């Protein structure tokens, strides 16, 4: 069977970037959380904060390694899979990626050594500085790569000569129209992913009865982060959406399933988009809501997909990804509030007092991943058929490898990634269930476990 090489190249890139983004998403946020643990320990001298740091820095290191190696793959794939992109947009993409390497990659990779293994070799102050530099490095990395991604969505500050992009104004390129929104949205998403990860793993530890005082401090930190940042994310997401409506209306049309331009467009909550018949089957609609949300007027006009014949993204994946992202986002808001309310109201740190909460938290350990992936699918599939919106199509820049080669390597990558993902979650489980030497059990738990053991023996 012959597959379309263009589709295969896209699938391969999608597989790589989907796998890659999982780990930076964790590390960008987790790094600031780790810095917070270190600062808390330095200020209070409470050992629990230091234990929290030791426990989470291991998971950070593991996630960081996965992010680095999958990121290197990305930097090569621009050339191996999309040579046309670099030939045409290299004058813009090159320097932005270059600044990422120069200002971020070396910083984080170098000081990571001290952050992980250098505690006894440097003073507390230097160690804190190393942690801050790694955190700054990961954030700087996000800054540059999101700047480039945003430029591909909303190009600015360029001029075109014979199909090749040249730079007119670097500030306009870097701070292109969608960049501030995308950067804020992603940074916040990262912090939220980290919040749910630390909350979920801590809850798991409590359920497995290997928790200590540090576990609950971490859990509370995660809950408070979620309670504040999840609603904030809804707000940023809304602003980001309005920005997209202005610059990429066809993406919004696909997101909302608006087939024909209309005034007072309804909000489709649910349904099955059908591109051939240009309709959404079994749609559940709220009258006029889409117009209200996007234009802030009951009768605001929304452009439909009919105005972008042949130039709009595939509807169903964008439509669905968006709904998954929003649903998970709403769940995250509720979870954040519920967890904070419960954990702040009762200071009793026992599994027996929070059974359902702990189960719910541990079920949502990877909620951030689901939301981030679906969010990126909305924006990236939503950019198609363009690689640089409105100016350069993806099909123009693809490399001409045979479909056999691409199928083989795609298969290899997917196999490797599935194996690594299973190993990662396995290692996380192992680390989470292992009673860390430093995390001494709480006295009441020891007594309880003793009681259980006695009962079992009797």
């Amino acid at each position: 069977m012959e597959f379309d090489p263009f589709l295969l190249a896209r699938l391969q890139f999608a597989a790589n970037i989907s796998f890659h983004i999982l780990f930076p998403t964790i590390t960008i946020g987790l790094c600031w959380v780790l810095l917070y643990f270190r600062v808390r320990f330095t200020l209070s001298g409470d050992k629990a904060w230091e234990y929290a740091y030791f426990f989470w820095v291991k998971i950070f290191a593991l996630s960081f390694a996965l992010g680095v190696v999958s990121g290197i793959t990305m930097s090569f794939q621009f050339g191996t899979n999309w040579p046309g992109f670099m030939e045409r947009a290299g004058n813009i993409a090159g320097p932005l990626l270059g600044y990422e390497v120069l200002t971020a990659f070396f910083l984080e990779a170098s000081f990571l050594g001290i952050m992980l293994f250098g505690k006894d070799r440097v003073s507390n102050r230097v160690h804190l500085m190393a942690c801050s530099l790694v955190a700054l490095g990961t954030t700087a990395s996000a800054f540059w790569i999101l700047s480039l991604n945003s430029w591909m969505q909303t190009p600015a500050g360029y001029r075109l000569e014979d199909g090749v992009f040249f730079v007119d104004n670097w500030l306009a390129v870097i701070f292109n129209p969608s960049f501030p929104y995308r950067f804020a949205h992603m940074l916040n998403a990262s912090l939220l992913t980290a919040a749910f990860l630390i909350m979920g793993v801590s809850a798991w530890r409590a359920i497995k009865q290997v928790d200590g005082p540090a576990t609950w401090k971490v859990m509370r930190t995660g809950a408070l982060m979620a309670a504040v940042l999840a609603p904030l994310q809804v707000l940023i997401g809304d602003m980001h959406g309005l920005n997209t409506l202005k610059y990429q209306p066809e993406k919004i049309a696909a997101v909302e399933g608006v087939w024909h331009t209309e005034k007072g467009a309804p909000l489709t909550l649910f349904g099955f988009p059908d591109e051939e018949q240009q309709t959404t089957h079994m749609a559940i609609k709220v009258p006029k809501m889409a117009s209200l949300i996007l234009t802030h007027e009951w009768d605001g006009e929304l452009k439909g997909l009919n105005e972008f014949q042949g130039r709009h993204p595939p509807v169903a994946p964008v439509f669905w990804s968006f709904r998954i992202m929003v649903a998970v986002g709403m769940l995250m808001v509720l979870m954040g509030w519920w967890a904070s309310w419960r954990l702040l109201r009762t200071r009793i740190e026992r599994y027996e007092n929070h059974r359902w909460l702990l189960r719910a938290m541990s079920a949502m350990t990877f909620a951030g991943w689901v939301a981030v992936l679906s969010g990126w699918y909305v924006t990236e599939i939503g950019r198609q058929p363009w690689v640089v919106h409105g100016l350069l199509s993806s099909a123009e820049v693809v490399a001409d490898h045979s479909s056999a080669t691409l199928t083989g390597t795609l298969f290899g990558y997917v196999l490797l990634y599935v194996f690594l993902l299973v190993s990662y979650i396995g290692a996380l489980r192992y680390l989470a269930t292992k009673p860390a030497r430093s995390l001494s059990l709480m006295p009441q738990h020891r007594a309880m476990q003793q009681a259980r053991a006695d009962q079992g023996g009797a």
Partner: protein
Amino acid sequence: MDLGYWLPLFFAAAMGLAMLIYVLLDGYDLGIGMLLPFATEREKDTMIAAIGPFWDANETWIVLGVGILLIAFPQAHSLVLTSLYLPVTLMLMGLILRGVAFDFRVKAGDAHRDKWNRLFALGSLIASACQGWMLGAFVTGLKGDANSYLFSALIAVALPSLYIVLGAAWLLIKTEGELFDKAAGWGRLAVWPMGMGLVLVSVATPLANPAIAAKWFTLPNAIGLAPIPLLTALTWAGLVWVFHSQQMLRHGYGWLAFLALVIVCVLASFGLGYSLFPDIVVGRLTIWEAASATESLLFTFWGAAIALPAILIYTVFIYRVFRGKATDLSYE
């Protein structure tokens, strides 16, 4: 000053430097990775501890090298990476396995430790061999005929042996006792294929490219250039001697082996640079033909001019923090 002339030259030199640093630094990581199966369990931990704080930053040099290729010479970047699609892909998979095995071997539980040790070694071997293959293909101009495949295959053996020697030499600096002696033994074995590789590249490069032959073998150039191969050969002999001399090894001069390797690699890259210049893809593209727009290069130049010295300074700082014999890695 003509920026359109000087900027591509600057970036070509920076790329060469990044690649040289990569070979030296990640070379010893990968070498130690390949040596891992020959060590006892206890020694494995020490070997990993000897590279633990460094490998991540070491690997970043290849990202910088490829990054400069991409930033400064996008035309060449596309040509080189699409021609080398398969070895690049395999190398990436090798680097992925190596990089994650590092963490998994201590974090996935004792039941999985053996598996990750093996994958660490396998990943290192695949990555090194693929890099050798790519170097071979690059030097012969990405031709894809039988001779250049044969040549690439030979370099795919030679480069890993250089990495193994680098790894052994690094262990002479970072370890003591039985492992130290073992490392010297590994070095004694691996210097031979490495030496053969050096000779091979030196002979085959001019044979494959008449233009390069002309650069080396016409008088008066030949006389001016003679010190490069001569010094390389001498340093290599010195390297063999250090590995064999119990006196040098016993009295704490093991680090001379690493120094000798640095000199060999610097000389070799001078030779290679001289051969290739001004081409970035041999026989097809010069650095000026492949360069991006001058204003883009200038923008990156300012960043590089500030960041590169800073990177070098804090790299030295990190190596100072972790100087001395390797101690067990502990997060606590």
